[in-house]
């Protein structure tokens, strides 16, 4: 029985990775109704920025804040330079642009920073303390999960209690009407992009100590984050985080006890799709009623 518990713990640890990136996906979805497939690679790039700053001698938290700020600006810039002009283009063209961005960020990360695996420091451990919970969860994994929850609370409060958050939701829901009531639609969209990139940076910096930093760090994570977000409901930050954790646990248990590791991925994704068939808006998602 302890075996199951250990698998659940390691599933939760992995799930925290998915959850943190899922939050960034929710952010961009809530403001633009797009799923940014380049989110993971942008986050990796942000993490490399933080890494270079730390290498250059900056303290961890200065590097952290600078990287998040730079990522925010990159997000704004992408919206202002690219997405704004493509506002009226086909939704598929937007997906095409995301794929382009994915390739660009991935390739540039490798070109500038190299492909060797790099250790990334954690603010929650000095490297030599005793592992917590018998090593099934590291201090960093616990800390990173708490950061994810804190970010979740902040995102929730932002959308729920601030007028800015309300305005952003309005823009996503109905840009025309928003413009009519005086909301600067472009600004809101840019802000959404900036915030999503910033959340991605936080996710990347929290993930890197666990999986090690390399240009392809997020390649596999994005799909799971996407699946987690949809499982929980992509318009619901709390749902997405829960979905991320759930995917981690499903995957660990499925691989260890159900089908073996060679079909682990297959079974994880199949079960997610199965859930979605019965709960098409995600487990915590709102059912959207569209007007005819």
């Amino acid at each position, binding site marked *: 029985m302890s*075996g199951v518990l*250990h*698998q659940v713990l*390691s*599933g939760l*640890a*992995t799930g925290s*990775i*998915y959850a943190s990136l899922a939050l960034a996906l929710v952010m961009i979805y809530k403001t633009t109704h797009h799923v940014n497939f380049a989110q993971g690679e942008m986050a990796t790039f942000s993490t490399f920025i933080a890494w270079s700053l730390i290498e250059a001698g900056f303290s961890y938290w200065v590097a952290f804040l600078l990287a998040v700020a730079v990522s925010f600006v990159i997000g704004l810039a992408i919206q202002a330079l690219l997405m704004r002009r493509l506002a009226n283009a086909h939704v598929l063209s937007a997906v095409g642009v995301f794929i382009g961005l994915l390739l660009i960020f991935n*390739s540039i990360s*490798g070109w500038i920073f*190299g*492909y*060797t*695996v*790099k*250790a990334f420091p954690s603010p929650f451990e000095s*490297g030599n303390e005793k*592992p917590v919970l*018998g*090593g*099934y969860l*590291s201090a960093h994994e616990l800390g990173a999960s708490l950061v994810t929850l804190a970010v979740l609370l902040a995102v929730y409060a932002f959308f729920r209690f601030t007028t800015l958050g309300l305005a952003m939701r309005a823009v996503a829901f109905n840009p025309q009407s928003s413009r009519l009531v005086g909301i600067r639609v472009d600004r809101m969209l840019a802000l959404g992009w900036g915030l999503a990139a910033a959340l991605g940076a936080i996710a990347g910096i929290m*993930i890197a100590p*666990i*999986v*090690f930093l*390399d*240009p*392809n760090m997020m*390649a*596999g*994570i994005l*799909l*799971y984050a996407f699946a987690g977000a949809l499982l929980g409901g992509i318009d619901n930050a709390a749902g997405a985080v829960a979905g991320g954790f759930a995917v981690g646990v499903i*995957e*660990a248990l499925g*691989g*260890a006890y159900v089908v*073996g*590791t*060679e079909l*682990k*991925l297959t079974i994880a994704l199949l079960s997610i799709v199965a859930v979605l068939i019965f709960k098409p808006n995600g487990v915590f998602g709102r059912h959207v009623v569209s007007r005819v």
Partner: protein
Amino acid sequence: MTNSAKHRLTRREVLGGAGAMTAAAVISQRAAADDMPGVTATEIKIGQTMPYSGNASAYGAIGRTELALFKMINDQGGINGRKLNLISVDDGYLPPRTVEQTRRLVEQEGVAFMFNTLGTPTNTAIHKYLNMKKVPQLFVATGADKWGDYKHYPWTMGWQPSYRIEAQIYAKYILQNLPGAKVGILYQNDDFGKDYVNGMKDIFGDRFDKLVVKAVSYESTDPTIDSQIVTLQSSGANVFVNITIPKFGAQAIRKVYDLGWRPTHFITNVSASVGAVIKPAGVEKAVGIISGVYLKDNTDPAWANDPGMNEWRAFMSKYMPGADLNDVNHVFGYGCGLTLVQVLKQCGNDLSRANIMRQAANLHDLDVKILLPGIKVNTSPTNYHPIRQLQLAKWNGKTWERFGEILSATAT
């Protein structure tokens, strides 16, 4: 069982004799009629496919190193007055593109031969084509065992010790030194991982299922392998064979340590780099790990003042300034390049494809200075595995401490 491996190898050698004679006969017959495609009085044109794009782009460093190395050779006057013109093109690690690019190199560019093309699936896709066209496919950059099949593919040759041979060495070590071993295996679910598992099977034979208490796989796209390590630990294994690429190698070392699991831990030489695996994982967490190595590790302090590695460092600082000195691919590419240089020197002025192949199969105790002391490059018409030696080494917290004699597949 040791016997079955012995069997396999002996049979290979017996059959080899006859096969090699035909192969050699075929090649020498051709030689007379062949002109020298891709070769002029001033230049030798060489083709190569590399994953400069796509998810294997980390290996692009090998191609870039070879381009730089040949520039250095050319700066020094080339080989017999001929400059090396390496046309290294991107295939994105996608077999259909490898076919397309290889055909371009052979049919349009008219290269003399292909050199150090990277990847198992990619090389498999052009294996038949190049052999039918009788274009040498020299020193392919992959550790699959099939590149030494001189009988059926006399125009293809590997370079590094094959994964399978390496795994056999670990398996033999386990049988001889670790009585009561309960083996847990973690392998990447692709040709690389499965070759190692097959190598273990060669030696363990019927006892594989009894000796190996648990074998689990991971996908190269998985974010972590934590769950797999937990599974292996709870299986009661006391020997851990870690068949992973560097990122997961480092993750596994750390996780095994954090769990308080203390198995006898073997890691493949793919992930034995000090700078790219051991240091990120934590030097103290890796103490006691065993690997079979053949290259001098560019990040191991043991080689800080080694003349061979100093040559490499001088080359890197002059011809690849700014490149990542932790990256073992730079050493690998340098070694392959130097081996080729020797082959071309041996060719003299007969740079026909047949003679290039004949000289590639005619290397005797070649000392490539980035190989460990005592490990030499040897080929013959019946040996298309240029490097088949490894030495076991144990990580002592500071360096890879080599122990025991140099092991080779032929010595079994």
